[in-house]
């Protein structure tokens, strides 16, 4: 994966310090996160709702 892109994403996430001190960990994390997306069969039905369901009044 493009190291410059990883650096920009890391800085945007506020990880400037981690990027300076642990660049290999930051790169590994970015590659893991972006490599995970192919493993999920995301719903194709636009109306498929997420879990947990929204409930009126709960947590308010």
């Amino acid at each position, binding site marked *: 994966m493009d190291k410059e892109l990883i650096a920009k994403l890391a800085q945007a996430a506020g990880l400037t310090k981690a990027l300076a001190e642990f660049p290999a960990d930051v790169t590994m994390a970015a590659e893991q996160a*972006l490599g995970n997306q192919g493993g999920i069969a995301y719903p194709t039905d636009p109306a498929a709702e997420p879990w947990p369901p929204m409930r009126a009044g709960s947590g308010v």
Partner: protein
Amino acid sequence: MSDLHWLTAAEATRAFAARKLSPVELMTAALARIERLDPKLHAFIQLDADAAMDAARAAEAEITKGRVRGPLHGVPVGIKDIIDVAGLPTTCHSKILVDNVAKADSVVVAKLRQAGAIVVGKLSTHEFAIGGPSFDLPFPPARNPWNPDHHPGGSSSGSGAGVSAGLFPLALGTDTGGSVRNPASCCGIVGLKPTYGLVSRRGVFPLSFTLDHIGPMTRTVADNALLLDAIAGHDPADPGSAPSATRYFGRMLDRGVRDLRIGFVRHFHEIDKPAHPEVTAALEDTARVLQAEGAEVRTVTLPSLNEFAAVNRVILCSEAWSIHAPWLRERPGDYGQLARQRLLPGAFMNAGDYVGAQRRRAQMIAAVEDAFRDCDVLICASSMDPASRIEDAAETSRTYPRQARTPFNVTGHPAVAMMSGLSSNGLPLSVQFVGRYFDDATVLRVAAAYERGTEWHKKRPPIG
């Protein structure tokens, strides 16, 4: 009485009631064993010996006067160090919180005290219940009583090691991707992840709000039910808590499995993550034992383990990032390397990843619910391999994700892991039983029938 350290909680309380044993005698034996074995096992982050002995004396006085506080009165319990105990540190096994002292008891600890249990101390974990086993933290990792060169599983490592070694009969762990059931599997004990929402999480340091569970860890199924009875119940201040009135989880332990329909999820260990041959053989033996006891066993199919793991990972990393982002930005060097590596991916996941995973999660829940239309309980693998050597980072990294526990964090169904045999190198093998929502009692009923049919729970680690 001899071998007090192997008494179960149920046996100890019966002995207290019959005046054959006192809480002070039991606590004295427990503390002596902890003093002798914990330097090898590192189950404890902080032992609270003086307070535990004071509480044992108080329990003895009350029981002598016939004032029994609850079903666990006088029984020692260990608490994973992400769960608050008033006045004791909650370090999460991390430099980040090394000076953090809990001001109040978590709900589960308050409930344990109401039941009469005595907290003996705080137990080792993977850092923040995600980064371990690690050797770059303020405390050493716990080790496996069956062979201290091996990992006891995690993240509730000290809970598993301590119960298995007879340091205490009861412990609490937490489970976000399998962290009660992994140490139960590695250490040959009984670990239950209850139904999501059955046990309050208030006062427990979160890892992932929609995946976190607190669960009982014990040497027997009966003790597991007793401990769950003590900690379960609705908490209106925990947004994930369910208004369930379910109680008395041990009420069906003697009923056996005759006429129960059990679904065997074979593809988890045969196709998705092919298991070690000894694990596979033990799983087939488990199915045969339950069939011999009168259950009907049929094969069922669920979504793949790899997809469950991917959904779990996106949700866990996203939710954990929202908790840890400030520290990861300001103090990345105060995390151990494993926790840092496992928490940072959340910084690179976006809202679409998270919501997409939660939408797929709803479909996966529906798939498991569909399986329960034709089955009362599911059997499947827990760990695909015996515990790795703790200092073999490559082997731990290879075997740690080879498990079938995360599906039931994703879905929230109750799941218990327990011993199903011993490997050729003397390490516990494991099986998992899974039930319908809030039917934790049936999960424990099947586990009890299996326990009676095999007696693996009578095996002891060769640690003295």
